[in-house]
């Protein structure tokens, strides 16, 4: 019995040795198989998108210009809000000018004579350098009368750099009654 067991174990050992020798081939085939499998998985994924090519993610700009809606908070450029009477709320306090990190805003003030004969400070020109603006929103936050806000425009390219320097107050506009 004892001897028989020995023999078995000998055979087993031999088997293991053979197995080890075969392991190289087995591993080789395994490598090839796993490698090919991983590639096929990738190919299947790209094939899925190839056959479902209507799931496009790109914006069809400028074809979708008419339907393009930008979020109302989008920071495109600074504008001075004018109402239908061509009146704005800017008192010329230069808070925005001070808040701006890039000297984008330059406010040129003048003194209006009010009907009562008092001298009153008002803006002459609200100069805005779009080329310097980084849309950081600090001027909007700083404005005490909410006279300026960010517009949702983004097509700012022009042929001449001088066109980027804008005067925001419209011709003949004046400050709204009651805004101090």
């Amino acid at each position, binding site marked *: 019995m004892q001897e028989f067991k020995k023999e078995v174990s000998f055979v087993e050992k031999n088997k293991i040795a053979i197995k080890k020798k075969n392991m190289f081939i087995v591993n080789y085939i395994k490598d*090839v198989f796993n490698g090919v499998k991983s*590639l096929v998985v*990738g190919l299947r994924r*790209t094939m899925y*998108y190839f056959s479902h090519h209507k799931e496009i*993610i790109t914006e*069809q700009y400028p074809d979708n210009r008419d339907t393009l809606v930008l979020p109302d908070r989008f920071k495109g450029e600074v504008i001075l809000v004018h109402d239908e009477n061509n009146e704005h709320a800017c008192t010329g306090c230069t808070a925005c000018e001070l808040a701006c990190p890039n000297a984008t805003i330059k406010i040129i003030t003048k003194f209006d004579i009010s009907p009562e004969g008092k001298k009153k400070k008002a803006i002459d020109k609200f100069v805005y350098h779009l080329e310097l603006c980084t849309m950081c929103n600090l001027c909007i936050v700083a404005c005490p009368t909410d006279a300026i806000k960010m517009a949702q425009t983004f097509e700012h390219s022009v042929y001449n750099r001088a066109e980027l320097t804008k005067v925001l107050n419209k011709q003949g506009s004046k400050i709204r009654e009651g805004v101090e």
Partner: protein
Amino acid sequence: MLSFSNISKSIDTWLNATFNSTWTMLFEMVIAGVGVISLFAILGLVLVLMERRVAAWIQIRLGPNRVGPGGMLQSLADTVKLLVKEGMTPDGADKFLFNLAPFIAIIVAMLLMAPIAFAKNFQLWDMNIGVLYVTAISSIMVISILMAGWASNNKYSLMGAMRSGAQIVSYELSAGLSILAIVVLSGSLNLNDIIQSQADGWWIFKGHIPVIIAFIIFIIAVTAETNRAPFDLAEAESELTAGFHTEYSGMKFALFFLAEYINVFIVCAIGATLFLGGWMPFHIGNWESFNHIMDYIPSSMWFFSKTFFLIFLIMWFRWTFPRLRIDQLLNLEWKYLLPISMFNLLLVTAMAILGWHF
């Protein structure tokens, strides 16, 4: 029935009736030349557009959609742009070789057109060593790449060229061995004979698993030989900017570009001929009615659809896989593809001798 072979035959008889044999020969050569060049132009346009469209769809984009209906004329616009661009030669470049290299590339591509059977009885040159000719000529491609890389006087170009040299030389082996599998089975080097041997079924179906393995190895090897991703180490743009054609611009660049696509077409045509039966229609055993319907589809249609299927396969690879590293590339060839294809060739030979295939 209107087919390529009938047209060519009628032209041949008309020329023979009108002129003496020398002039006929000359005229036919001119016609063949014009035909090949126009085929080049059309293939270039179609393949570039196809590549861009395949890439776009895989990448969830639309692809070219500006020039012409659905962007169909995009590649034409690109060609015009490349034609009018300035072709620069860098300082310190070997001017003669630098200018010669793109032409060699395109000439090699032209030479490879000769033995391809585009349709039934429609072939430029039916030679008895067609397969050998194709493998021999396609190796010349590496010379143009090495020439371009060396003459550019640019380290990126040189490295790209050297990589390409190592790559093409090694992948020639497994491409050759897998082609050999079909040669063994069909017993001929003549491409027409190989096609004829597939009249009752294509080799990929008749040849069991060994031929399928040979086919896969063939596709991998030719992808590498034509420097297409994931084996595009010669131009690996994230490592070598553009590899061997870094310094090329304008028309000379366009020639390299065109040669790449023509080479893809040719290797796919060869693959289609060897494994998928060339212009041979799809037949199923003795199902006569089905085979008859298949016969009605023109042979040229069969050939081109098979070729374009293989081209699509190669494009599909390109837009899915990352690039290999140079040592892994050579490992893949010498450690995996070559032993497998050698063993496979043995199997195929045994199969051919024992007649185990259908």
